[in-house]
């Protein structure tokens, strides 16, 4: 039997959790504004940006290539099964290409980078937070945003579109190979149908999406690191939250961007 008191307790907890979420969004907003302000007003550290581009981009290549290739192959198999029953197997190529360029390339690259580099950002910055290294930088009058955070954000925004393109290319190439060698689709039909269907705006959409996902996952990764408290357990918690929030954010943002791009 639910008592009035239970309802009050439930309402109180719900209210407290809602306020907590609103506060977290507010703090994240302030953090983002601070990062953008630093980007505009403080000189950029080119060496640090390049080092982060290597970490986020080059070091993520194997996982992105493997993901793109696998998904490209799976897409070709699924598309063939569905389309061939309508006698439309000539559209396997465009389907694989469009799906990879518009969706799977940017989204999967972002999810892979969030899991690999975003989590590492949170863990590194969080460890620096709990071991007072960030406080040490503050006492030395070193701008933490400029020194640590902005290079990570800029590197992610620059590298994600290229990772997405590589992911897309791998998917399309493997999709082609599977279609030609396993499914027996005519190579000329495959390539010609892509040329006839796909526009440069499809590639551009994926490129823009990937850059926005890069911004989002790096901001989340850095923010969760900066607000880490409570020792090793706290670093673990922040790192997990960073991956979960960045992945969820990527998927939600993907829907929003797709809806906006469909309108345009």
């Amino acid at each position, binding site marked *: 039997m639910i008592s009035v008191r239970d309802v009050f307790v439930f309402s109180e907890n719900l209210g407290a959790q809602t306020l907590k979420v609103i506060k977290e969004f507010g703090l994240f907003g302030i953090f983002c504004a601070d990062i953008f302000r630093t980007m505009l007003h403080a000189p950029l550290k080119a060496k640090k940006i390049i080092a982060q581009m290597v970490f986020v981009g080059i070091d993520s290549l194997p996982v992105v290539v493997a993901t793109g290739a696998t998904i490209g192959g799976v897409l070709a198999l699924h598309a063939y099964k569905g389309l061939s029953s309508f006698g439309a197997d000539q559209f396997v190529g465009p389907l694989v290409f469009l799906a990879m360029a518009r969706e799977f390339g940017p989204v999967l690259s972002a999810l892979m980078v969030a899991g690999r580099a975003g989590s590492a950002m949170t863990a590194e910055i969080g460890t*620096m937070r709990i*071991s*007072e*290294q960030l*406080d*040490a*930088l*503050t*006492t*030395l*009058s*070193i701008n933490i945003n400029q*020194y640590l955070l902005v290079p990570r954000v800029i590197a992610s925004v620059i590298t994600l579109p290229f990772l997405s393109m590589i992911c897309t290319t791998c998917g399309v190439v493997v999709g082609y190979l599977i279609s030609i060698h396993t499914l027996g689709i005519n190579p000329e039909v495959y390539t010609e149908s892509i040329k006839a269907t796909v526009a440069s705006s499809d590639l551009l959409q994926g490129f823009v999406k990937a850059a926005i996902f890069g911004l989002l996952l790096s901001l989340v990764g850095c923010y969760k690191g900066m607000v880490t408290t409570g020792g090793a357990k706290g670093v673990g918690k922040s790192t997990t939250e960073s991956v979960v929030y960045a992945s969820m954010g990527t998927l939600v943002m993907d829907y929003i961007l797709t809806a906006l791009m469909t309108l345009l």
Partner: protein
Amino acid sequence: MIAIRNLCKKFGSKQITHNLNLDIVQGEFLTIIGRSGEGKSVLLKQLMGLLKPDSGSIVVGDTEIVGLAGVELAHALKQCGYVFQFAALLDSLSVFENVGIVMLESGIAPHIVRPLAEECILKVGLSLDVLEKYPDELSGGMKKRVGLARTLMGNPRIIFYDEPTTGLDPIATQLIHELMRKTHDEYNATTIVISHDVSIFKYSDSVAMLFEGGIVHKQPAGSIWQSDHPMIRQFIHGLADGPLTKNLKE
């Protein structure tokens, strides 16, 4: 030099510093003692602007630092150096990069920074080969010395030490205390040390006791062992019974 008035700081419902008043004069070597959890490090972090007080005033030199932030705060505290409890060296950087970080980050070429870093490393009693090492290759005592060398690169007039000898053996503790006093005299600095270690009294000018958020007593270090203040007596003699543990017993 430093004047603290009615300083208050709360974490949630827990009052950490409560109407704390303290004056530290130019050139003084002050040791602040108190039981664990009394808020000694919180006090130091408020003095360095790392934590914002809820109310009260902190005047460093001629500048009120409460309410300052960013560049203004950094400018006001330019004359201050902070040596952290566990040195807080950046573990991704070499000792040279740690010691010279401020100059290197402001764009000064490494070959200009290097002689200055070497000078500071020698001053803290380390050999020059340490410069190429990384923090995880150093012992606790060496890390603290490197932390001090990093602070000395800024020619500080005020040096804060947060429990500088925690985790060190008695010999390393003595060496660090001697180094702190030597640095204090050489730089004509004002030194504020948070410590549990009573052996530092030998090197201090004065000792202040923090209890329940406030400074309850301050006296010259030379006469501390003869102090008739009950809290000081209990603390320095390590007595289980007394006013510091009254609340615990109740």
